[in-house]
């Protein structure tokens, strides 16, 4: 049994959302960046939502993936989070204020 991240892109009212579920670590870092890069290629005009509410686990490689996505998307990126592994990690790393949220 190995944990996996599941990445899915949806479009709602013209707004793209990348949903990440499961466990985001080293094995899925590049994959998330690739998916976000493709979503940005598709639409550079609207906010891109990165929905992290379905994550059960994230570590510094997952954080690194999210920060890389932010570098690519810049102000276009918004995160959706709930209290849990993501907010705990962001607090420990001191990066909570580096992101915009929806």
């Amino acid at each position, binding site marked *: *049994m*190995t*944990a*996996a991240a599941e990445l899915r892109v949806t479009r709602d009212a013209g707004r793209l959302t990348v949903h990440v579920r499961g*466990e985001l*670590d*080293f*094995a899925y*870092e590049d994959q998330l960046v690739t998916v976000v890069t493709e979503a940005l290629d598709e639409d550079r005009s609207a906010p891109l939502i990165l929905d992290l509410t379905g994550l059960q*686990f994230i*570590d*510094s*490689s997952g*954080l*690194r993936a999210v*920060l*890389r996505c932010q*570098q690519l998307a810049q102000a276009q990126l918004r995160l959706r989070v709930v*209290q*849990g*592994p993501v*907010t*705990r*990690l962001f*607090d*420990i*790393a*001191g*990066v*909570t*204020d580096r992101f915009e949220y929806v």
Partner: protein
Amino acid sequence: MSDLPPPPAPGAGEAAGGRAEPTQVAALRFSIQLPAAPISVSVARAALTAVAQSIIPDRVHAAELVLSELVTNAIRHGSPHPDDTIEVDIDIDLDRLSAQVRDRGPAFTLRAHPPTGDQVGGFGLYIAAMTSHLTVRHDGHGNVVTFTMPRALTGVPSGPGPRPATSGHPIQHPPRGPGGGQRKRLSASE
């Protein structure tokens, strides 16, 4: 109903009168050897969780996070050859959980600064050190990175938010936003 056998007498390892308490696992040790590939990070977590979930449920999330960071670091920086392996020894005793992660990389020291500015990397060992007591030594073959955390949460309720300081290791939360305050980073000096 009445012909059930009487409950067994408490065994030698059980606390007196602790009828309703599950037998506490006193000590447990296991080792795993993993290929130096990204998928090994979740395999290490799954192995730890499978063993620790029933013994130290309050500590599993924190332990998984630290182990994830150390195994990732060993793969990223401590595995110069494709067939290198990462060795993980996990040791749970009455008071604490500890784990050693051994790699084949060049020696590094732990430094006390968090990543700054717009850096995207360098958080791994910092996060590990904020969550556990962390040491590193080089044994001539590679680095031996050890983390230790108390087995029990010491009177602090678990819940959202950063892990409390429970190991005697000073925990400092880096200030929000750019600029000020004291910062602390522990990371591999490549």
